């Protein structure tokens, strides 16, 4: 496995692929009179193309647009305010994924609530929060469950354990997102022009290749599922442009050693068993019907939204343009706050906070001077 991974970062192979992309991108431009515009859906891809220098090297040849695949960035401001409000309650332990604790709400962050003495803990696996609940029977333990299809099954595992072991002081505040509804919305509204997609390696492990055929059947837009190492990224970009050049839209699974056509059935069953579709609010985009999953009614005793109802005011309007960034409408640098009022030390919006955020990736990896 290690040998395979080494090949995926081989400089020689990467340089050969780069040359091939320059060549095919030129041919594409000759044929269609413009550079191909590819959207990397996944936040980890956004970071990888910035960090490896691929985005900079392809500038002027291939337009790489950052998509809406960072789970922290798409979390609605009102949800963040609600999570912080939730942490204010007495006798509670709030468990969260790392990135979330720095995301600013309207007035503060989970980190500042922690500094003020609230018990907020970072966990890597949601099931660890169930363990914390068992160890603290006199406290209410609430896990903040955000994420795409990659993360939803592991949220399901935590619900399964809490339900089967009858952990009565555990609940989950869920605000999850699904890939298909947001891609459909982007394509239907056409605000940003996308010729092809670099499809997410992690999400596809759960969903499988077959799930993406609507892109080809309904929108005639090709996509390539690829991994995160330079060779995988460059190969994904090359194959997508090749499909575009030949005008043969298709879905290619270039991550076959990990992604199966049908996906991970066990993970899908967990999602099906514990969650049901719901309308979700996306930051800067608004509510999209059936774009998220919430805890099924039969497990409502584990639903923190029902156990601890919270009402928050609509957020104050700021100049933060994270909503436009996640839709691929603007580059992070085009936001007037970027690298001035908004930096990783003092973030205004979640795209600057998250390790997978477009703004953070641009700030950390794209600035030279």
């Amino acid at each position: 496995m290690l040998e395979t991974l080494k090949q995926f970062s081989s400089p020689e192979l990467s340089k050969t692929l780069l040359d091939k992309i320059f060549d095919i991108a030129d041919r594409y431009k000759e044929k269609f009179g413009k550079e191909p515009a590819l959207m990397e859906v996944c936040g980890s891809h956004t970071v990888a193309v910035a960090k490896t220098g691929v985005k900079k090297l392809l500038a002027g040849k291939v337009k790489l647009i950052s998509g809406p695949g960072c789970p922290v960035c798409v979390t609605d401001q009102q949800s963040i305010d609600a999570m912080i409000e939730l942490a204010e309650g007495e006798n509670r332990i709030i468990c969260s994924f790392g990135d979330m604790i720095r995301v600013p709400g309207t007035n503060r962050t989970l980190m500042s609530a922690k500094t003020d003495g609230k018990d907020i803990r970072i966990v890597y696996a949601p099931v660890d929060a169930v363990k914390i609940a068992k160890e603290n029977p006199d406290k209410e333990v609430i896990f903040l469950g955000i994420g795409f299809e990659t993360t939803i099954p592991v949220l399901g595992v935590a619900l399964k354990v809490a339900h089967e072991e009858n952990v009565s002081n555990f609940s989950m505040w869920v605000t999850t997102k699904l890939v298909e509804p947001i891609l459909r919305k982007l394509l239907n509204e056409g605000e940003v022009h996308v010729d092809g997609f670099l499809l997410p390696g992690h999400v596809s492990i759960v969903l499988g290749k077959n799930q993406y055929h609507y892109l080809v059947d309904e929108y005639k837009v090709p996509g390539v599922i690829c991994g995160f190492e330079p060779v995988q990224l460059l190969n994904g970009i090359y194959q997508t442009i090749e499909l575009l050049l030949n005008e043969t839209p298709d879905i290619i699974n270039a991550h076959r050693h990990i992604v199966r056509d049908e996906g991970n059935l066990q993970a899908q069953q967990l999602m099906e068993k514990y969650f049901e579709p719901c309308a979700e609010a996306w930051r800067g985009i608004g509510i999209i019907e059936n774009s998220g999953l919430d805890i099924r009614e039969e497990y409502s005793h584990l639903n923190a939204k029902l156990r601890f109802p919270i009402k928050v005011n609509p957020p104050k309007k700021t100049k933060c343009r994270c909503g436009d960034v996640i839709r691929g409408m603007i580059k992070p640098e085009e936001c007037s706050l970027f690298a001035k009022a908004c930096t990783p030390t003092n973030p205004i919006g979640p795209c600057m906070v998250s390790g997978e955020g477009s703004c953070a990736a641009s700030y950390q990896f794209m600035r030279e001077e």
Partner: protein
Amino acid sequence: MSEKISLAHGDGGELAHQLIQEVFVSAFEHHEHARLDAALLHVPSNKLAISTDSFVIKPVFFPGGNIGKLAIVGTVNDIAVSGAEPLYMTVGFILEEGFLIKDLKEIVTAMAEEAKKANVKIVAGDTKVVERGSVDGIFINTTGVGVIKEENFLPRKIKEGDSVIISGTIGDHGVAILSARGELGLLTDLESDCACLNRLIDDIMSASNKVKIMRDPTRGGVATTLVEICEDFKVAIEIREDDLPIKPEVEGACDLLGFEPLYLANEGKLLVIVAKEDEAKVLEVMKKHELGIDATSIGHVVEQGEGKLFLKMTLGSRRRLNRLSGIQLPRIC
């Protein structure tokens, strides 16, 4: 003697005396310097280097060391990288009521061993005991005193072309600690690199008088340390991604968590900036020392970009490296 630290161990009475005699004096030896309220030191120089640091690490015991070893190493290295020879050290302990005395003994033994290896004498100390919950087990402060030889004054003027050398693989301590915390589900056998660098530094300073500056890249890692050098001395440095020595398990853990090895802490690694013409000579002596076997040149001082650190990437482009902003947090996806 009781098994656990109690508040009475800090009240200056019989139990406190017992603790000092049985745990500290027996481990640190009773030097002539420490017979008065203040340690009287013989210092053969009028140029002293003094450094102090506090250690609050979690977990207290980790693969490759413990908080005591770290408290010696951290201060010895801060003195040594300044070009000074570390001679004496003071130690302050803040102990939580209930802390196990056997654990304290293990920590103190590690301190004594490490100080002996580094040829540093522990000449004064202090112990306070606080109520349960006031500290996390044990906090240690160490202050070190060293002397600077006339010919070893650092820093010297850094110039374009100077080489940047690292003494070994980066990020080992950071990943060992993350793994030892057990919170992230990481399982590696990786040990912390925690070690005193003063002997290695002696060898380097004997081999070359063209060393410009040295630093131990602890918190904030190699990147933050080099950014500070760039800013403080108004130079630009470019390091090469291809030449960074990183163990596969460190790379793997970083991939998984979304961390960057360049920002992970090291506790036994040395960064040396040396004139290009002495690069080979310095690398040769470093590789002969057990703490410098994997020493390698990772970059050089470049002409343009005063105050900035750059990373030359494998695929040919380069990007700027900034200080670590806040803490590195594990990613979600």
